[in-house]
Structure formats: structure tokens, C-alpha cells
């Protein structure tokens, strides 16, 4: 097990290192564009040259990369040209906001999707199963931007009972959280529910469940004691991987509701060529993606007794 963990950790670090090299090379090969971004389109060639020299951009790219990596590891992500402040000062609050959004979404979505998935999978082909599957397919098929427009029309413009944006300008507001969370839940709960349903249906077909039923155990006890634990192994992996989606895959929702989160920050950084900010956001997204993948792998191994290492 220790060897397995060490291997996963080394693989994770190598992946992040490789991505950081690619990212840095893509963004910093053309130093001229960085100077244009900082000094503006009307700056002269001489001004740009002086700025590049003063900020160390004329040094070899590998020297700059090593310096950047060293700074990144100690939490110094550089300066944002868009926000005119340290990247760390803007990044962590935004990450916190997205974490809050993810917390609310997970807190509501996971119980709903697991319950619906288990109910559907318990009696495969039943009316309940068909209804839940239909609902799940429909909601998952509607993209976030469409459900955001629809919900906004209903609750903001028509009924007038919810705020249209979620910027928390006057501090945290539960009412402002409702629409973005609702859109994310509608989009994602069907996916998790269907994965749970498939896993549950598979478990319910397994010989040991049939044996338990045939030997006369109450159905409720068969489900709760024998089926559920095994049926939740596959959804566990899916749920952990949703963390990654909730971090950087919610750009549309954050943009639509003016939610000041990590996804919107990444978009803003990209639209404004804010190099240090793009690098920091991308690296954080990579760390979360690789980290959640590793956690999912380790968790799956722990939960599934059929996978064991000697």
C-alpha cells in the first residue's frame, strides 16, 4: 500500500511538473506580448525593451522558469496586471468563493442524486426507475447557460423573488446563492444519479444479493446492509471527480450570475492576457485535477476489497 501511495504521489508530482513546463513555455515564450499588455498598445519599442530588461524577461527562459517555479512553491504567484495587485491576494478569496459554491452544491446534490440513483437501481425497469432516468437524462442534457437563462427568467424577471446576480457585494447572501446552486444541481445531479443507478442495478443482479433474498432476508435489510456499500464504490469516484468540475468547469454559471469565483477569474485572466494570473489559476486547476484523481484512486482502492496490494 505504501509503495502504491508513493507511486501515485510521484506520478502526481511529475504530471504537475510537466504541465507547469508546458504552461510556462506557452505563455512566456513571446515576452513582447507581455510588455504590450503591461505598458499598453501605445507604448514604444524602446519603452517595451526597457520594461522587459528591468523585469528580467530578457534572461533565458529556463532561468525564468526555475525562478517562477521556486516562487510558486512558496506561494508567490507574481503580480496581476489586470488587478494591479499580488495574484495571491485575488486568487485565494476567489477560490474560497468557488469552494463555497461547491459546498452548497455538493451538500444538496449528493444526497439527492444518491437517493434517486439507489431508488432507481433497486428495481431496474420499474416506473420509478424509468421516471428518474428520464428526469436525469433531460436535466443533464440541458446546458448550464440554457438553464441559467430559464431560471433567471422565471425567478428574477417573472416572479421577481430572487436577485439576478450573485456578487455578494454586501457580504454573503443565501438568496444570491440560490440560482447558481440550482443551475449546477440541475446540470449535475442526473449524472451522479445515473452512475449510482447503474452501480446499484449491477449490485442487485449479483449472486450474493440473490442468495440473500432467496434465504429470506427482508428486502430492506438486503439493500441497506449488503447492496448499498458495494453500490456506492463507483459513485464515490464520480463524486470526487466532480470537485474538479466544480472548480474550473463552472465558468458559465459564474459568468452569468456575476459570481466572483475561480472560474470567472480564470476567464478574466485569459481575456486580459494577465500572464501571472493565468499561470497561477491554471496550476491550481491542475493541482486540484491531479489531486482529486489521486484521492479517487486511493479511495476506490480502500473501499473495494477486491483490489488489494500485498
Amino acid at each position, binding site marked *: 500500500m505504501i509503495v502504491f501511495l508513493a507511486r501515485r504521489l510521484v506520478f502526481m508530482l511529475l504530471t504537475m511538473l510537466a504541465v507547469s513546463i508546458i504552461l510556462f513555455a506557452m505563455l512566456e515564450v513571446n515576452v513582447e506580448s507581455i510588455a504590450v499588455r503591461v505598458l499598453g*498598445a*501605445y507604448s514604444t519599442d524602446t519603452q517595451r525593451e526597457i520594461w522587459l530588461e528591468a523585469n528580467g524577461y530578457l534572461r533565458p527562459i529556463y532561468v525564468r522558469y526555475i525562478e517562477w517555479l521556486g516562487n510558486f512553491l512558496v506561494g508567490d504567484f507574481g503580480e496581476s496586471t*489586470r488587478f494591479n495587485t499580488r495574484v495571491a491576494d485575488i486568487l485565494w478569496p476567489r477560490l474560497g468563493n468557488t469552494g463555497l459554491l461547491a459546498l452548497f452544491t455538493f451538500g444538496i446534490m449528493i444526497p439527492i442524486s444518491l437517493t434517486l440513483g439507489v431508488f432507481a437501481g433497486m428495481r431496474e425497469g420499474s416506473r420509478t426507475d424509468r421516471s428518474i432516468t428520464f428526469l436525469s437524462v433531460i436535466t443533464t442534457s440541458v446546458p448550464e447557460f440554457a438553464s441559467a437563462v430559464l431560471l433567471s427568467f422565471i425567478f*428574477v424577471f417573472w416572479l421577481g423573488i430572487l436577485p*439576478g*446576480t450573485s456578487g455578494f457585494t454586501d457580504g454573503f447572501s443565501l438568496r444570491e446563492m440560490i440560482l447558481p446552486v440550482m443551475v449546477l444541481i440541475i446540470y449535475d445531479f442526473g449524472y451522479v444519479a445515473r452512475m449510482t443507478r447503474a452501480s446499484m442495478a449491477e449490485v442487485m443482479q449479483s449472486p450474493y444479493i440473490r442468495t440473500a433474498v432467496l434465504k429470506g432476508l427482508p428486502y430492506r435489510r438486503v439493500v441497506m446492509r449488503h447492496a448499498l456499500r458495494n453500490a456506492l464504490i463507483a459513485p464515490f469516484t464520480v463524486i470526487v471527480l466532480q470537485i474538479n468540475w466544480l472548480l474550473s468547469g463552472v465558468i458559465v454559471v459564474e459568468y*452569468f*450570475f456575476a459570481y466572483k469565483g475561480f472560474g470567472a477569474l480564470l476567464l478574466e485572466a485569459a481575456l*486580459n492576457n494577465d500572464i501571472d494570473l493565468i499561470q497561477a489559476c491554471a496550476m491550481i486547476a491542475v493541482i486540484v485535477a491531479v489531486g482529486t484523481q489521486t484521492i479517487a484512486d486511493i479511495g476506490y482502492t480502500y473501499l473495494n476489497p477486491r483490489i488489494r496490494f500485498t
Partner: protein
Amino acid sequence: MDKKELASVHVALPNLVEQLEKGRTTRRDFLRTSTLLGLSATAAYGIAGKITGEHFVAPARAQGTPGGTVRISMNVMELSDPSLADWSQKSNVYRAVNEPLAKIGADNITRPYLAERWEANDDLTAWTFHLRENATWSNGDAFIADDVVANIEKWLDEAHGSSNYSRFSSLESADAIDDHTVRFNLSSPDLAVPESLGDYPALIVHRNFWNNGGSFLDNPGTGPFQMSDYTVAERARLNRRTDAPWWGGEVMLDEIDIIDHGDDPSAYLAALASGQVDLLYEISADQVAAVRGMEDLELYETVTGQTGVARFHVTSPPFDDPRVRRAIRACIDHDVLLELAFQNLGTPGEDHHVAPIHPEYAELPRPQQDYDLARSLLAEAGYADGLDIEINCVAQPTWEPNTCQVIAEMLRPAGINLNVNILPGGTYWDRWTDWPFGFTSWTHRPLGVQVLNLAYRTGVPWNETNYSNPEFDALLDQANATLDLEARRAITEQLEQIIQNDSIIIQPYWRAIHTASNRNINGFELQPAREFDFPVWSMSSS
């Protein structure tokens, strides 16, 4: 005022009054030109009222109940030096604190502001500005001529990088005559000095601004507000100054609260509809119909000189061949373009960048769509088998890529395959003067010659077409020095004709601009360049 008194203000004023009396100029043009020449707005309106029967309407002053906060949805951008402002959103924040010498109203007329009045010499090469004696800086210093001189000197320093450098290209120096009088010395006549002083980057900062770090946030202002809270891309809050009375009188608002809702227009409108803000910086043309259907909201529309141009870099192939440029222009139906790309909310363009609302506008025969001409010009230029080209434009606002898409469809029947390359704003603007074919938005300016000076004169920084025509430059010099409106219109007609003939731009349409508010805000008028006039606003309780 009799003719002698008028002539003492400026020698051209008696003639201008005569033109109005004989119906050779409109009331609006009379007001504009006479105030430019130093006649007070009150006197100008008085004379015009006597002649035309339309009496003086006092400029809006703050009315209503003192107190209250106005909440505005607008991008909060990085703030540094007002003279480096490149977006009017920035200048709207700056303007609450730092003020201009002249202000352009919602009626497109320039009025004295920090300068109480001004005069020009007969040939318009020296302008004398008399400053308000009761204006003070928020640090207690008096507002004096040295402040203005320090600003002008900075603007004229090319290395500083202000767009005022080209805006005041004829300005050589500014001299403080006494504490409250400044003289501008010009190398060539320029009619538009007051108009340029009303443009959004021409705000006056304290004389020690650059010695004190050069940051807006750490320096005083003469305006009625001061910054209290500011985070880029999130929020800016300004509170009414309490240290001393504002020179302009009573200000009703206690606070201005600017909230950044990002770049999605639907977010702005949702914020207004749900009462999170009182006013939007803008709404898109697509949203006008929706706002019309919402009873609780007020819709504002203003006809402007705002536009976008699909401009050719005339030294980059294949656009260095005038036949190619003419062929592309010949494919355009401006009326259809306006209808499809901008919901008919404006006026069709004529490919010369002088708007019908500009006083010196001269009407030319409208450009007509002519595919036969386009095909023959292309064949002549060696593209009989078709031409593949690309236009670069920004993704937002959507009217810009939409217009490019419609242009692409219009070019197709002539065998021109136009690829529309939609770029993030930052990427486009980093190279906006370099694209071989690009679509650039241009803001409103009160006079036609102002835009021509900025964009089409040889060698100026904003000449994105790389156009260079000595004949055009010479005519532009003449227009800059011609006060008589009829004479200036005749010169402008030639300038328009040259731009059309040389086919350096496709100018699809002039945009009407729109915004919306709730019904709690009083005194707001939609100015053609979206400049906010906070001191005259007030809030009703909802």
C-alpha cells in the same frame, strides 16, 4: 449683447449671430460654436431664444432630496492616471474626483466647467482660459493655473503615453498668465480645443500629482466626491466630500456605489430588474426590446457619433491595392447591415467617419451595393477567381462580431471569402493598429474634424489604417482653422469624398446608444460618450 460686445468676446461671433438670424445655421450649431468661442451658455441660449423663439432651458442641476446612494452596474477597471484613461468606464470614476476644464453635455454642446470662460484670438491659435476662483482641491490647496500648466506639460510629453498627446497635436505650450488665467499656444489653428478639453482623458489632476506617485488613489481632486473603497473588477465606492463646499453648489448624492457584474450583458439587466442596482452603464441593442417591455424601468436612447469601422491597413497586402478596397466596399448595403447587425437602432454609415449629428457634416450620395463593380475591380486587381481575407474583431460587445459576420455574408456573392477572427478584447487591442483588416469601435466626439485628426492624419498614433495623404492633411488643417460653419462644411465635404474615394474604411452605421435605470434616479441623461454627470443626480426614495 450688441455686436460690439459680441466681437469683444470673439471677432467671429457677430457673423455667427447673423447666420442664425438668416437661417443659415441651426440653433444647435449656433449654441455649439458660440460657446466654443467663449460666449457663456446663458448668453448663447439667450441670443438663440431671442432669434428662434426657443427659450433658454437651464442646464440640469441637482434637484430632489439630499442624501442617498446611487448603485451603478459598470466595469470597475484599474485606476492609475486619468490622462492615461482608455475606457470611458475608467473616466466615469475619475470624473467624480477630477474634473475637466470643459464639459460636453447630453445635448452634444460643450460648456465651461473648471474653466469659467475662455476666449480665442482671431485666427484660433491662442486660447485663453479663465479658471474658477472658488474651486479647491480636497487637500485644501487652491485650484490655480499652475495645475493646468502641469497637466498640459505632462500630456505633451510623448513618453507619458497619454492619448491627449495626439488629441492636442497643435498645442505647443501653456502659460500661466496669473493664478487663474492660462493661455494655450497653438502651432496651427484649432477650433476644437474646448471640445478636446471635454474629452474623457482630459481631466485635471493636482500640480503635484506625478511627484506624489502619479496614482489617482493617492491624490486630491476638485470634484465633489472622493474614493472610499475600490477593488478592481468588483466595486468602487465614492463618498461626497465634506471638507469644503464644492465649487458647483449643492450635491445631492451621498454616495456612488459602482458594482462590477463582469462582461455578460444579461447579468447587468438581471441586477437592475431585481433591484440590486439603480442604473446600468449600458445595455446592448439586443436588450432594448426587453427593457421596453418592463414597466418599472426607464429606457434611455441617444443618437451619437459612436460607430465601428472595418478598416483596411492600406500598406498591408492585399489591402494596399485600392481596387481591392473599393471592391470590398462595393459589396456593402449599409441599410441592411444596420438592420441585421444593430436592430435598426441608428443611422446608416457612409464610409467617411463624419456623422450627420456633427455640425460640419456634408451629405454625399449614399454608397450603393454593386456586385458587378466589385467583381470587375477584383478581376482587375488579379483576383478574378476569388479572394480569401480575414477580419479581426473583439468578442464583446456582440454588435461588433455580428457586424463582421453580416459583412462576410455580403462579400460572399462577389467571390470574397471573409473569415471573421473573433478575439478576446485584450488580444485585439494589444495590436489594434497592426491588424491588416480589423473592426474597431470609435467613441463619440462632438466635432467631425476631431475624429479625422485622431484617426486619419498622417503619422498620428491612432491612425490604424496607416493612411497618409498630404492633400487630406492640408484640407484637415484648413478645416481646423475655419470657424465659419458653411465654409468648414465645404471643406469637410472634400475630406469625406477623399476618404470614400480612397476606400480606407467600411463604416457600417452610426449607433444609437442605450441604457436603463429604475425610476428612483433623477437628473440622469445619457450623454453620447456615456460620461456620467454625478453632481446633478439625486435619488428618490423607492
